[in-house]
C-alpha cells in the first residue's frame, strides 16, 4: 500500500482543529513543528506565536511581540498539539484527547464573560497545567516562500507548498508521522496554487483554473534527497535545475483531455 500523501499548505495549514469527542472548535493549524532529517511533523502549533511569523511584516511582528509581552513564561512557545492525537484529516482536522485551553479564552472568560449574568457559568475554574519549556523547533511555515537555488547557485524559484508522505517514524506507537517528501517550487516570489495543482479533478471554473495553472506551468518538484542544505536563507540543491521533475508529472494526465 502506498503511504498517504498530502500537501501541507493545502490540506493542513490554516484548517480548523476540532475536538473529536465533542465537536468543539479548538484552534487553527497555524503552523507545524518539524523534527529530524528528513524532517517529520511532530505537532500542530497554534496561537499568535505560531501565526505571527506566518503573517510576517509589521502586523506579524506586533502579534508576536504582544503575545511575548503578555505571556508569563520567560521564553514563550506556541501552543502545541502533538501529532499522535490527530484522528481525522478532512474539511477540519480532528484531534483526540483534551487539549488545554488557550490563555486568551481563559482571560476573557474570567475577566469579562463570566462576570455578566446569564453567561451559563458554574465556575469550576480549571487549573492550567504548567507548561514545560521546550527548545524552539523548526517550523514548516518557515519553508514557505523561501528561495531555492540549484547546484550552480541559479534561482529555481520559491517554495509554494510542501508535500508530506505518511511514512515517518511511529508516533507514540499510534500512527506514522508525516515526513517532508517534496517541495513544490514556483518561479514567483509569493505564490499560492489554491489547490489547482491537483489533478485531474478540481480544475473548475475554467477561467480561474487557467489563470492559476498558467502561473505554474514552469513549476518544479524537488525531492527531499535533492536538497543539499537548508537554512534561513533558503534551500540549496545538489542537482542542476534541468534535472528537476515538472509539477505536471505528479499526476496522471486528465483522461478527458485525450
Amino acid at each position, binding site marked *: 500500500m502506498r503511504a498517504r500523501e498530502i500537501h501541507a499548505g493545502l490540506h493542513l495549514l*490554516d484548517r*480548523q482543529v476540532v475536538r473529536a469527542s465533542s465537536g468543539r472548535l479548538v484552534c487553527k493549524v497555524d503552523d507545524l513543528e518539524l523534527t529530524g532529517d528528513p524532517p517529520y511533523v511532530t505537532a500542530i502549533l*497554534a496561537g499568535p506565536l505560531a501565526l505571527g511569523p506566518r*503573517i510576517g511584516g509589521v502586523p506579524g511582528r506586533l502579534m508576536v511581540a504582544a503575545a511575548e509581552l503578555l505571556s508569563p513564561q520567560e521564553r514563550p512557545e506556541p501552543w502545541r498539539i502533538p501529532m499522535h492525537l490527530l484522528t481525522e484529516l478532512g*474539511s477540519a482536522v480532528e484531534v483526540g484527547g483534551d487539549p488545554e485551553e488557550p490563555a486568551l*479564552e481563559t482571560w476573557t472568560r474570567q475577566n469579562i464573560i463570566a462576570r*455578566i449574568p446569564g453567561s451559563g457559568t458554574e465556575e469550576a475554574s480549571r487549573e492550567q497545567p504548567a507548561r514545560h519549556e521546550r527548545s524552539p523547533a523548526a517550523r514548516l511555515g518557515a519553508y514557505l516562500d523561501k528561495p531555492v537555488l540549484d547546484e550552480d547557485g541559479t534561482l529555481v524559484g520559491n517554495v509554494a507548498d510542501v508535500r508530506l508522505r505518511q511514512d515517518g517514524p511511529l508516533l507514540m506507537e499510534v500512527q506514522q508521522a508525516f515526513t517532508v517528501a517534496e517541495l513544490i517550487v514556483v518561479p514567483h516570489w509569493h505564490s499560492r496554487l489554491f489547490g489547482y495543482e491537483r489533478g485531474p479533478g*478540481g480544475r473548475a471554473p475554467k*477561467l480561474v483554473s487557467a489563470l492559476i495553472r498558467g502561473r505554474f506551468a514552469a513549476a518544479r518538484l524537488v525531492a527531499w534527497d535533492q536538497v543539499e542544505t537548508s537554512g534561513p536563507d533558503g534551500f540549496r540543491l545538489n542537482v542542476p535545475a534541468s534535472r528537476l521533475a515538472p509539477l505536471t508529472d505528479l499526476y496522471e494526465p486528465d483522461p478527458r483531455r485525450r
Partner: protein
Amino acid sequence: MKKAFAVTLGILTAIGGFVDIGDLVANALVGARFGMSLAWVVVVGVVGICLFAEMSGRIAAVSGRPVFDLVRERLGPRAGVVNLGASFFVSLLTLAAEIGGASLALELATGVNYLLWVPGVAFVAWLVMWRVKFENMERVFGLLGLVLVVFAVALWALGPDWGELAGQLTSPPQAEGAPTYWYYAVALLGAAMTPYEVFFFSSGGVEEKWTREDLSVARANVFVGFPLGGLLSLAIAACAATVFLPVQAEVETLGQMMLPVGLGLGKIGLALVILGVFAATFGATLETALSCGYSISQYFGWQWGKLVRPVEAARFHTVLLVTVVLAAALILTTVDPIMVTEYSLVFSAAALPLTYLPVLMIANDPDYMGDHVNGRFTNALGTFYMVLLSVVAVAAIPLMLATKAGQ
C-alpha cells in the same frame, strides 16, 4: 406538512431579512434621483447574492465549514488577515448604520431624539445575542421585517403612471452625469451583495447543523426568498421614483424615505412602515454584529456560535460586546447614519472579490464537496460574477472620490 411549514417559514424569513438599512437607503436615494433606471443593478445584485449564498450554504451543509474558514484556508494567513480587516471594518460601519436606522425609526415613532435611543437599541441587541436562541432570533425579526411589504401596497395605492415607470428602466435622467450614475450602481450592488450576508447565512447553517438533507430547504430560502426581497427593494425605489422624481426632490432622511407610504396609505401605513423599518434594521443589527464575531473567530479558529453557553465561547462573546459598543459609540458622535450607510455600501463593494473568490474555489473542490461540486452553469455564472466584482472593486473607491460620494 412539517417540511412545507419549514420551507415557508424559511422563505418568509429570507424576504424579511433581505432588506436592511443599506437596501432601504440605496433604493430610496436612487429612486428619487434616477427613477427606475438602475433597477437592473438590483436584479444583477440579487442574482449574485443568490448564487454565492447558495454556494456557501451548500459548503456549510456538506462540509460544516462557514465562509471565513474558507477564506483563511484558501487565501492563507496573509491575504486572509487583509480580508478580515476589510470585512470587519465594513461590517462595523454597517452595524453602526443599522443601530442608527433602528434608533431613527424609534424617533419617528416617539418624537424622542434618536441619539437617546442608541444606547438602548445597542443594549437590547446585545441582550438578544446573549440570551435568545439562534433560530428564534432569526425568525422573529425576519417575519417582523415582512411588514415592509407596505412599500409594495403603498406603490399600488399611489397609482403611479406604470408606463412612465417602465420607460425609466432604460433611460436615466439627463440631468445626472455618468460618474454619478455608476457610483450609485456600485452602491446598489454593494447593498444587495454585502459580504456579511454570506458570513451570516453560512454560519447560521452551521449553527442550525444543516446536513445534505437540508439542502433543498436552504435552496428554497435562497432562490425564492431573496428574489422576493429584491422585489421589495424595487418597490422602495419605485415609491421614491413616483413621489420625488417628478418634483426633483432629494431624499436626505429616513423620514423622507418613508413618506411615500404615508402619502399612499395614510397614518396606518406610516405606523406599519416605521415598525417594518425598525424590525428590518434591528434584525440586521444582530446579523452584522454576529458577522463581526463570526469572521474574527473563524479566522483565528476560536470557538464561536450561540449553540454553546457564552462561557464556552468567551472570546467570541467578547468580540460581540466590543463591536456593539464601538458601533454605538460611532453613531453617538452624531455622524449622520445615512452617510455612514452610503460609505459602508461603497467599501463593501470594494471588498467583495476577496470573500467570494474562495467560496467559488471551494465549491469546486471535490475534497470538500464530493459530488456536490458546482455544475457548469453555476461555474459560468460564478466566473462572470468574479470578473464583474473585480471591476466593481477597482472602480468603487475612485468613483467615490471622483463624484464626491455622489454629489
